[in-house]
């Protein structure tokens, strides 16, 4: 089943083409990683797919709904965990989760059950009454993902979820992301090759707004005649593979 179908998606800012004619299909339950250097167009792509910014041309369909014409329907299906942690710092972990329940119209017993379920599954029980602004980077990221999962999204966008985390916190977050695989469709952007290789079913490499290559990690390495994904990435971005 196609969860996301992107057709010639383009975003221009004055003279700069941030995303250039992107075409891609992501299947239901798949974890798709978008790799690319800074300015490659990853975040702009996610912003267009999550209806935060309008495409200049082209369109994308999430579970059949157009991001250009059916933004409200798309928003009811998705959740975003942005590059920054995007939490309310003076609110406790529990209050942050209640905020997200409230804005999604989840109240009463369902709200309590949802918060209990997410704090358990993301290991937030021990910090539930701590203010979000006082949490470590790893816990802030967990909270950020928990806030995104409140609405039971069909599609989850994780924009560089492990940026700035130490090795242990990153490994723990990988386990959380792995636990979501197959249950929802995940689009993950990252700078870390090992992260994409460890988590993603398929990887897309972007450069200068274009999708340069798509495939499983091994397929990309084979295409670039490289031993590691990092080598393959460098070769592809420098134009060594067409």
């Amino acid at each position, binding site marked *: 089943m196609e969860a996301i179908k992107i057709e010639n998606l383009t975003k221009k800012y004055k003279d700069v083409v941030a995303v250039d004619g992107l075409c891609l299909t992501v299947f239901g339950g798949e974890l798709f990683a978008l790799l690319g250097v800074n300015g490659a167009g990853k975040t702009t792509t996610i*912003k267009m797919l*999550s*209806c*935060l*910014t*309008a495409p200049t041309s082209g369109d994308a369909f999430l579970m059949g709904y157009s991001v250009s014409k059916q933004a*409200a329907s798309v*928003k*009811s299906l*998705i*959740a*975003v*965990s*942005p*590059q*920054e*942690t*995007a*939490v*309310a*710092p*003076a*609110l406790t972990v529990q*209050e942050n989760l*209640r*905020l*997200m329940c*409230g*804005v*999604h*119209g989840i*109240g009463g017993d369902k709200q309590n059950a949802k918060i209990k379920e997410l704090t358990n599954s993301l290991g937030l029980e021990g910090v539930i009454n701590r203010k979000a602004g006082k949490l470590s980077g790893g816990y802030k990221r967990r909270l950020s993902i928990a*806030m*995104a999962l409140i*609405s039971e999204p069909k599609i989850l966008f994780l924009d560089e979820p492990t940026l700035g985390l130490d090795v242990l916190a990153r490994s723990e977050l990988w386990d959380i992301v792995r636990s979501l695989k197959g249950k929802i469709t995940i689009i993950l952007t990252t700078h870390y090759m090992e992260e994409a290789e460890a988590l993603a079913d398929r990887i897309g490499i972007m450069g200068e707004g274009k999708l340069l290559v798509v495939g499983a990690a091994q397929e990309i390495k084979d295409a670039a005649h490289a031993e590691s994904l990092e080598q393959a990435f460098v070769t592809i971005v420098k134009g060594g593979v067409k």
Partner: protein
Amino acid sequence: MKMLTFANRNAKEILRDPLNLCFGIGFPVVLILLLSAIQASIPVSLFEIERLAPGIAVFGGSFMTLFSATIISKDRQSSLLQRLYTTPLRPIDFILGYTLPMLPIAIAQSVICYAVAIILGLKLSVNLLYAIAFTVPIAVFFVALGLLFGSVLNDKQVGGICGALLTNLSAWLSGTWFDLQLVGGAFKDIAYALPFVHAVEMERAVVVGNFLAAIPHLWWVLGYATIALVAAVLLFLRQMKRQ
């Protein structure tokens, strides 16, 4: 329901910051106490409580701009707003959610200000209730300015523009600290073209029960509040679209 959840969060975020409480509530109270102490020690009428309290009540309102601009600016920078833009919240929910919690805070601030003034000798009368009610359009003006600045500035710029520049402007051009007639000239003309002195003179008139004298000043305040609110909504929607 969704808007109220967001508004509730914003109120908590502001009230849990001890600096906000210090500046929003504490600073105006300290000013009233200090200037009243000065008045008690000098032979001329410079800071009589009937004229001082309305001025401080208006000056305190300028902190509402700082509070609302800071929270919006930080929400933009932390991407919390970006996250919330992908939820079912509508643009009107964001605007009301940021504006409404500020109004009870502003009213509470003016209640405290007049309560301290009563302790210092301001005559207790029903007019004070009207004076507190008349702070609502002033609060709307200051909160709208906060929405406007928070939509375009980062939190450091907000600190400079709203925390330093606006509070000083609203103080110097309000006629609270000195009589603008004595300065005269362009300074007085500029002051009377802005809403701060009108807000103070409106409050002063209401405190003594001279409602007819308050009406012309009320129009100035309402006019500026409307312009600020419209500009704020347009700029907020613009930054929302620019996401």
